[in-house]
């Protein structure tokens, strides 16, 4: 599958990017004993809302630093799984663990809506992400660094109301990144954006993940997004993991290339088949 990447001319920017990403990841791995991300282990996880059993026993291990995408039809339980991982809902049965003690700042969530405080300047919104450290001396410097990361330094004193949808989502990303999280959970973060903004946001996500090496959990209904970004794709059906697909395609992945399209097609077929046979 890796051979397939060599036809078609990758653009110069993409080539520069992959060197950067690969280098950063290699440095991370070399410098510390393990990568920055935390491993995630889920055992026999169950969750019901009233009589409706949404998750029926999920078992999953995600190695540190992996980029996992969770896809599935609406109502399959993928968002619930993400909310349980992020600690936003109580667990009925089973366990979610990150291989040791975690601080609240270690695990961050990004939602489909940016959820920025409209009455706080962009930089203050990012400072919110520091959690307990937001009153500390270096808070605004760290927030500014996170804004530079997402390319919005010049918007730091603007109100969120004047930003575009994509810019708001980048501020939300900066807010999630500012505490240097070790697990980042994304709940359809690009679902409300237009196609072009979505592609540039995907590149941004891939870049920061490459640089900071956190463990990424992405819930999406967009299979092509999952195929482009993830190391591994989980297909959820009826509250269980129906397929666990490793995406063995080298980065940078070229949108529209034959191997991505083939993989996307096969995952879509999985999803559609289950829909046709009740």
């Amino acid at each position, binding site marked *: 599958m890796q051979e397939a990447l060599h036809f078609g001319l990758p653009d110069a920017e993409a080539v520069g990017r992959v060197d950067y990403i690969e280098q950063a990841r290699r440095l991370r791995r070399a410098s510390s004993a393990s990568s920055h991300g935390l491993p995630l282990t889920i055992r026999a996880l169950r969750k019901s809302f009233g009589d409706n059993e949404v998750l029926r026993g999920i078992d999953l291990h995600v190695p540190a630093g992996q980029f996992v995408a969770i896809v599935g039809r609406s109502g399959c339980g993928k968002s619930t799984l993400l909310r349980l991982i992020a600690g936003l809902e109580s667990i009925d049965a089973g366990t979610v663990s990150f291989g040791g003690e975690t601080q609240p700042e270690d695990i961050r969530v990004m*939602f489909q809506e940016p959820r920025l405080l*409209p009455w*706080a300047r962009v930089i203050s919104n990012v400072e919110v992400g520091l959690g307990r450290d937001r009153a500390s001396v270096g808070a605004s410097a760290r927030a500014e660094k996170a804004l530079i990361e997402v390319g919005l330094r010049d918007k730091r004193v603007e109100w969120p109301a004047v930003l575009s949808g994509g810019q708001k989502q980048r501020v939300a990303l900066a807010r999630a990144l500012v505490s240097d999280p070790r697990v980042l959970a994304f709940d359809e973060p690009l679902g409300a954006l237009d196609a072009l903004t979505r592609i540039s946001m995907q590149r941004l996500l891939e870049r920061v993940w490459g640089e900071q090496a956190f463990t990424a959990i992405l819930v999406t209904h967009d299979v092509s997004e999952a195929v482009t970004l993830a190391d591994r794709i989980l297909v959820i059906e009826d509250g269980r993991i129906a397929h666990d697909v490793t995406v063995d395609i080298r980065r940078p992945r070229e949108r529209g290339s034959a191997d991505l399209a083939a993989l996307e097609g096969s995952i879509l077929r999985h999803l559609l088949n289950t829909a046709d046979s009740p």
Partner: protein
Amino acid sequence: MSLTESIARLRGPRLPRADGLIPWIVPAAIVLIWQVACATGFVPARVLPAPSDVALAGWKLLLSGELARNIWVSFWRASAGLLVGGGIGFAFGLANGLSQLSSKLTDTTLQMVRNIPHLALIPLVILWFGIDESAKLFLVALGVFFPIYLNTLHGIRTVDPQLIEMGRIYGMSDRELFRRVIFPGALPSIFVGLRFALGIMWLTLIVAEAIAASSGLGYMAMQAREFMQIDVVVLSILIYALLGKLADSASRALERLTLSWHPAFQKH
């Protein structure tokens, strides 16, 4: 800077002054027509004195110090009543917006009391307090209580739950959540309540002063009626209009200051 931006900047300073004058065109025209109608005898002075006569009456009262004293007394009553009633309304709004228990305990009672027209209490209030300051204070406070209570409550209950969830995820304490998310979110609604309250504040005060007072603008107007000084009666009415406008402008200025983040208050 683009060309259109530089043009906008060049024009910028001249526009606000012209904009500021536009709202005064209609009142100025009304005064002018009124003056002409009186001067030509179209409107007899018994029915409506000319603006110049009203101004003269105002000047005389100003010189005697009576006008300033009465305005001051009314202004003091209005603001004290607003502060007390508004403060209590705000406190109940916060308590009932934030606590289920408090809401269950007091909201029904407050809704029942709300449906009594507060001016209907005037006879009772006179019996309780006589005609001294506490009677007026009580009535104004009662009048402004409800709009501030209802709008504070509404503002807090309609704060975006997604923002509250966000605040909790990012580890905000209850106090911080209130200060950074709930209160700023409720503020636009609280201001709506304040502006309603200002209207009710003047209305209540006029009625209370006209019925039971020995000083203040309402009293001045009622005294003038006794002595058939129609120019002073008209003067009092005009001063009420001006004070009402002043209070509204003050609350708008406060709104602009605190809600500068709101798209409705942003300059483009």
